[in-house]
C-alpha cells in the first residue's frame, strides 16, 4: 500500500482528487490520484494466477479497505 502511494507521489501525482469517481474509469483515474491508484490495485486479485495468492489477498484487501475508509472519513472531516 505504502509503495503504491509513494510510487505516485514520487511521480508527482496528487494524493487524492475528490472530483474523480471512486468506482468508475479507474484505469484512467489511477494515473491522476494516488488514492485512486491504490483502489485500482485492489482489483489486482483478478490478475492472480494461483488459488493460494487469491486466498492470501483477501486479508490484505480488508486492511487496505480499512485504510481507505479511514482516509475518506478524515478527508471529509470526520
Amino acid at each position, binding site marked *: 500500500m505504502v509503495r503504491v502511494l509513494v*510510487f505516485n507521489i514520487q511521480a*508527482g501525482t496528487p494524493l487524492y482528487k475528490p472530483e474523480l469517481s471512486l468506482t468508475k474509469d479507474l484505469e484512467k483515474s489511477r494515473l491522476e490520484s494516488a488514492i485512486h491508484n491504490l483502489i485500482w490495485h*485492489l482489483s489486482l486479485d483478478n490478475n492472480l494466477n494461483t488459488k*493460494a495468492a487469491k486466498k492470501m489477498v483477501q486479508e490484505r484487501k480488508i486492511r487496505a479497505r480499512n485504510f481507505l475508509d479511514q482516509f475518506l472519513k478524515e478527508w471529509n472531516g470526520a
Partner: protein
Amino acid sequence: MHRAKLEIAAKELLKNDPTGHDIYHSMRVYNLAKEIAKKEDWQFDDDILFAIAMLHDAGHERSIRTGDKYRYKHMEYSAEIAKRVLAEVGFPGQKIPVVLQGILQHDQTKPWGLANRIPTDIKEILLIQDADNLEAIGILGWYEF
C-alpha cells in the same frame, strides 16, 4: 556461489530507488513466491525464482532517472541490466532466457500491449507475478518508510 554474488549485485542496483522497490522488496517477493509455491504444492527451479526476484526491479531507478513517469519501461531496463549481471555472476546460461522472460513479464499492472501481458505457463513467472501483486496490496510496506 552465483547466488551470493547475485544478491550483492541486486543490493547495489536497488540501493538508490526512492520508492520502496529495494532489496527488501525483492526478498519479500522471493519469500512470498516460495510460500505460494508451497501452498500450491508446485515444484520450481529455485535459481530461476531467486534471480527473477532479485533483478525484476533492477531497472526501476533508471526508469525514474530517465523521466519514465509511470515506469512503463522498467521491465525492459531490468531485463537489460539482468542480462549483464547474470553473465557477470556466472549464472547458468541455459536458465537465463527464462529469468529474462520472467523479468519482462513480472508486472501485470502496466498497459496491455507490452511483453508483460503475454500469457505464460512457466511456474516461476506465475509465482513472481502473484508475489509482486500481493506486495502492492499488502501493508508490509509501512515498515520500509
